C-alpha cells in the first residue's frame, strides 16, 4: 500500500533432487523486493554458489501447485524449483 515498492517479501524456496544437489541445500529463505514473482526468486537462487546450474526456465510451483515464472509471490509463500519429473 502506498510506498509498497520499498517493502520486501520473505518466501521459502524448496529445491529437490538434482537441483538440491546443485545448490547443496533443499531449503533457502529468500528476501525479495516487492512486487516479487517466481522470476525474481529464481534470479536470487541462481546467485547462490552453484545456482547458475539451475535452468533459466525450470518447472516451478507456488504453495504446492504448478506455477509460472510470472506468478506473483506474497509473504510466506512456499516456492519450489522442480527438476524434470520422473514419477509414474
Amino acid at each position: 500500500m502506498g510506498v509498497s515498492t520499498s517493502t520486501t517479501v520473505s518466501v521459502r524456496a524448496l529445491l529437490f533432487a538434482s537441483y538440491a544437489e546443485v545448490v547443496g541445500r533443499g531449503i533457502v529463505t529468500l528476501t525479495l523486493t516487492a512486487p516479487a514473482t517466481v522470476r525474481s526468486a529464481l534470479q536470487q537462487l541462481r546467485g547462490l554458489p552453484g545456482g547458475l546450474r539451475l535452468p533459466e526456465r525450470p518447472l516451478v510451483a507456488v504453495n504446492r501447485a504448478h506455477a509460472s515464472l510470472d506468478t506473483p509471490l506474497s509473504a510466506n509463500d512456499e516456492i519450489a524449483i522442480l527438476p524434470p519429473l520422473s514419477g509414474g
Partner: protein
Amino acid sequence: MAYLTSAPLDLGRLVARVTAPARGGIACFLGTVRDHHGGRAVRSLEYSAYEPMAEAECARIVAEASTRWQAEVAVEHRLGHLRIGEAAVAIAAAAPHRDAAFAACRYVIEEIKRRVPIWKRELYADGTEAWVDPTRSAGSPEGRADRTVPHAAPGDAEWGV
C-alpha cells in the same frame, strides 16, 4: 487418503476400493521397475517426492478423472527404494462401462507423469547412479524450452481409448 507410500503396492486392494455393483468396468495400470533404461542395466531405483504437493496433485488428478468420466479412481505411488519388477505406481479406475474406465485410467497415469513432483534415481549394475531426466532421454539435450506445467483443464485434450 494418502497417495504416496513406502510400502509395496497392492493392486487388489485398490480394485476392492473402487468396485461397486453399478460399475461394470475396472481398468488398472501397474508401472513396474524395468531392468534396463537408456541402454543401461538398472539394479534398483530410488523414488523421492515433494510430498505435500505430490499428494495435492494426485488428489486433483483423481478429482478431474472422477468428474470427467463418472469414475471411481484409486491410485498409489511408491517412494523409497524399489527393486526390479516391483510396482512404482498402481491405478484402478472403475466406471459403469469400460470406455470410461480405460479413459480415466489412462488419464491418471499420463497426468501423474506430467504433473506430480516425484523423482527417480537409477542405481546401475556398474555401481553408478543418476537422476532420471525424461526431457533429456527424449532426445533434447537441454530439456524442454518451456517447463511450465499448466493445470489440465479437463476437456482440453483427448484421452479416449
